[in-house]
């Protein structure tokens, strides 16, 4: 370790490994992983999400939720940006994931054609 600057750079490169342990004020991606979701392919959606996050080095939390009653629309995926409404996307295929991540998580614009519901802030 030659300098404080070098140490701080090392810290920044290591911080992403700890990202999952910080759940404050971060975009959340929530995947419907009830039996219905899994049957409809939610595991592959989840894996696709992880691939995108890693590729784009995003600092987000990925969590799962159980069945919310819209089984015919599974797989479902919710995006909750800090301070924004929670948006639910349904009938997803793996290829949709990339679009949602780029448009919604990164650029902050809801993907209208895939969205099926909106929950107001605090209504999680």
């Amino acid at each position, binding site marked *: 370790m030659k*300098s*404080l600057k070098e*140490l701080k750079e090392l*810290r920044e490169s290591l911080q992403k490994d700890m990202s999952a*342990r*910080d759940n404050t004020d971060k975009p959340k991606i929530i995947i419907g*992983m009830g039996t219905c979701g899994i049957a409809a392919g939610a595991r592959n959606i989840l894996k696709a999400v*992880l691939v995108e996050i890693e590729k784009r080095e995003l600092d987000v939390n990925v969590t799962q939720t159980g069945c919310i009653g819209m089984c015919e629309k599974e797989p479902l995926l919710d995006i909750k940006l800090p301070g924004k409404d929670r948006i639910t996307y349904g009938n997803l295929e793996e290829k949709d994931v990339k679009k949602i991540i780029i448009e919604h998580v990164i650029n902050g614009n809801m993907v209208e054609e895939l969205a099926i519901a909106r929950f107001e802030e605090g209504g999680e």
Partner: protein
Amino acid sequence: MNHSIYRSHVLICTGTGCVSSGANTLKTSLVDALEKHDLVGEIKVVDTGCHGFCEKGPIMIVYPEGVFYCQVSGEDVEDIVEEHLLKGRIVDRLLFKEPLTEESIPAYQDIDFYKKQQRIVLANCGKINPESINEYIAVGGYEAAGKAITEMTAEEVIEEVKNSGLRGRGGGGFPTGLKWDFTRKAAGDKKYVICNADEGDPGAFMDRSLLEGDPHRIIEGMIISAYAIGADEGYVYVRAEYPLAIKRLQIAIDQAEELGLLGDNLFSSDFSFNLHIKKGAGAFVCGEETALMASIEGQRGMPRPKPPFPANKGLWGKPTNINNVETFGNVPFIIKEGAGAYSSVGTEKSTGTKVFALTGKINNTGLVEVPMGISLREIIYDIGGGLNQGKKFKAVQTGGPSGGCITAEYLDLPIDYDSLIEVGAMMGSGGMVVMDESTCMVDVARFFLNFTQSESCGKCTPCREGTKRMLEILNRICDGEGKEGDIELLLELGEQIKDTSLCGLGQTAPNPVLSTVQYFRDEYEAHINDKSCPANVCEGMASAYIIDEDTCVGCGMCTKVCPVDAISGKPKEAYVIDEALCISCGACESKCPVSAISQG
């Protein structure tokens, strides 16, 4: 699938407490289950140090949700993996339930045990993997050392520590900055820094948990201290009976050396620092600084008179700064966040926080860190969850064998160094033993004196002979053979030993006796005058049990459990206890279905 990013981190506490309640088996089952469900690349399993809530171990925290599971066993793993990690459904039955409301609480920040705590020293304990320097660096570790070495002069570091108001956490409460200043100003080109981890008070485990849970923080504190006083070598004196702490500290030292955070020319400066571990054999007296240094030098661990103080003449005759584990644990925060941020916590004369090991007759046993000035009531009832089985609070013993008792009338006393001394107790290193109405205070005093007497090194007469005589008197009182004048004799001896002993061990050994006499003199008098132990603890004095013949249904259950065959009678008639044979063990009382048995 192999990601470098994990969507979820599962933290398992592998401190000594949780390991003894089965954390290692739990971890093996979890790793197996993750493999079975093809989740290995998505979910990371992390060993951490102590979360403090040892009572509820093994403890597991699942991130990003931050769900706190307690008393998790190998059989629960399948549920956690299938329900929570796969489907996102929290396993309700493993959540912590508040004892009073029976309410399940998923996030640990919301549990009463954690709510009133303020974690500075323990900030990383239970949050990072203590065997990974990368995790320590990821949370900002070693940046305080870097800042001190590259941006501050040694004098500025000392000034900052002085301004923070930090006082020695080993128990004495001496201002840390002043101690560093003395050592810096002492003449000599070779100086040492020592970390005193010879934690020996019965019921205390603060230093062990800190070394197990966040060893890099202690190393960083020592680096800063060494830089400030001009030392290039240091020792951590830790007892051999802390194998996990030693193992993790050694790993941490090796990692720091590899990254160039220990060794020569740190941060390209001309400051060098090397650190060694010295294992102690577990003698209590080696917690005394001069005895500790004698032990490092390879001599018999015995104290010597002070002055000269270690700051002038310490290890191998060189100026030496010696601080407790927790004291060093505070230093990185002070340097990084500033003296003002630190002194804004706590009281005017006792700044910052204090770590306590909460044990005894209390619901939530564990390790807690609270701001100075908090009341005992908050620690015992809000954090500690009150007393076992709703029993009545009698006293709390702080400072271990050197300390004293605080009684119910002082429950609202703000806890700091000076207030505790005023009421005849002391901060000590942080052991806090809670006692209820079923505790005999004479017996407690005897327990601690027996401890110090056994640990007396024998060098000076007052401690060697004096504690022995005091113990004889206490044994006599507890055996029902106390004489009039015994209390006065104890007080006289105690004061003499305090005034004339060579080191801190002897100077404080009488404290548990003096303090219990001060607050519970009536219990001593009952033992001596009435030959009775009010708490029914002292054997040979507890009165025999009797059976109420009107209530007895003659079931005979009591005869089956009596270990000395003192109960006789015929079925369906009232049974009788032979008082001469009864040893007052109480086995019959707990077995009687109609509560006909009580102590006479």
